[in-house]
């Protein structure tokens, strides 16, 4: 049995529901309802209101289409550039404990020094981020960012070699050339990533396996795969070409390679370095002037 109280509640509920349903309609839709009278069609046509109704209907359709597009755009995959930036940082976050970058570090003055060298060589409008790691396991790498580059560098490596600001900046410059040459992206990118980046997944779930694959490739590239001899040769020659006009920088770079070569040969902790960056010894040879046989 429906009591008076229940009946009152039911009415109140229906009233609230109809009020909500009304608020969901666009303002233009409501206006359309007001002007859409078939019974007085002639009068309306004479007054031009019929045309106004048609215009309103078109306006409503356009707005509804825009609304759907906005809703659909919420389901976009990031563009390739944005995806690189996101995955690089996500990889750093996921490996925070292994890479051990969350520690109080000395101020090496790298920002100013690296900027100075880059500008000296004519590289302008380049955004960079440097992250120092407190681990000897991962020595160095340059990761692609979104319109920027992310350098990671081991503090124990820097300390063991007693590297100066200039020497560190030259290592970063080498990494910059590697990144610019697209070696990292080429070694890490997957087909799925290229296919999905910038597309839409409206009506389905995003394929996160794409990011998982990339994260695995990042770890593999930074800790195991590294670069080929050919890639190293090209980078060394590029360094040679850019630094030749500045003998001080060239000599520092040449001495630095020799220093690294001697260091990794006697230090077991950095035995993998040669596999990742083959090889400082060869780099010295590639840079050395050819010996003339008399």
């Amino acid at each position, binding site marked *: 049995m429906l009591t008076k109280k229940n009946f009152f509640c039911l009415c109140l509920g229906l009233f609230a529901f109809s009020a909500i349903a009304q608020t969901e309609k666009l303002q233009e839709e409501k206006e359309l309802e007001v002007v859409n009278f078939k019974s007085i069609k002639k009068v309306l046509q004479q007054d031009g209101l019929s045309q106004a109704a048609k215009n309103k209907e078109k306006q409503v359709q356009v707005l509804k289409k825009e609304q759907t597009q906005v809703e659909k755009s*919420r*389901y*976009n*995959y*990031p563009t390739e550039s*944005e995806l690189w930036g*996101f995955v690089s*940082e*996500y990889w*750093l*976050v*996921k490996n*925070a404990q292994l890479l051990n*970058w*969350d*520690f*109080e*570090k000395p101020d090496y003055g*790298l*920002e*100013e020094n*690296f*900027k100075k060298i*880059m*500008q000296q060589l004519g*590289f*302008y*409008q*380049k*955004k*960079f*981020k*440097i*992250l*120092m790691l407190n681990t000897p396991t991962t020595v160095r790498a340059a990761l692609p960012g979104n319109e920027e580059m*992310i350098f990671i560098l081991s503090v124990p490596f820097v300390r063991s070699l007693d590297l100066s600001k200039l020497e560190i900046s030259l290592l970063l410059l080498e990494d910059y050339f590697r990144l610019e040459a697209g070696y990292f992206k080429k070694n890490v990118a997957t087909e799925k990533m290229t296919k999905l980046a910038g597309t839409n*997944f409206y009506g389905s*779930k*995003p394929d*996160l396996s794409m*990011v998982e694959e990339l994260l695995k490739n990042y770890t593999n590239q930074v800790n195991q795969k590294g670069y080929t001899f050919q890639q190293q040769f090209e980078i060394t020659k590029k360094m040679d070409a850019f630094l030749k006009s500045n003998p001080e920088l060239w000599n520092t770079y040449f001495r630095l390679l020799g220093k690294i070569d001697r260091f990794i040969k006697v230090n077991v902790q950095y035995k993998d370095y040669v596999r990742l960056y083959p090889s400082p010894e060869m780099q010295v040879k590639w840079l050395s002037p050819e010996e003339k046989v008399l």
Partner: protein
Amino acid sequence: MSQLGNDPVPLEGIKMWWILLLPSLLFAETVSTDEKVVGVFYFTPMFGHVHQSSVKTSASLTTIQCSHPVKVIESSKVSAGPEWAYVQVADYRGFVLKRFLAEKRPECFQGKYPKFFDAFNMDLSELYYWGRLNDQYVQGETRVN
């Protein structure tokens, strides 16, 4: 009534109260005028922390994300240093690097790709580290001299 009105002791007591109360009221006035809200700014990196002190490695009071409004406060009692801003976020008062604040609401990754970002369902530890990451970077940009 007569007892109260004729008794000189309570009156003196009231005077004494005023003498004690007046400086504290004046002091309260200086405290309230000592602080100035510089304005509301927006946090720009993906995630970050409101720090307990103006040191990158100092403890985090709370984690905030891109586009979060931050009230910047100027106070003669707090020295933030040239790189840091003294801020209020909800009930927390702490420090945020100035380079992370913008006057206009920034376009954030999580705002641009909400469904993609939400799908990762990041845990607190990941959000915390992402915030720390932005603090730990040494950042720069080369320019034409």
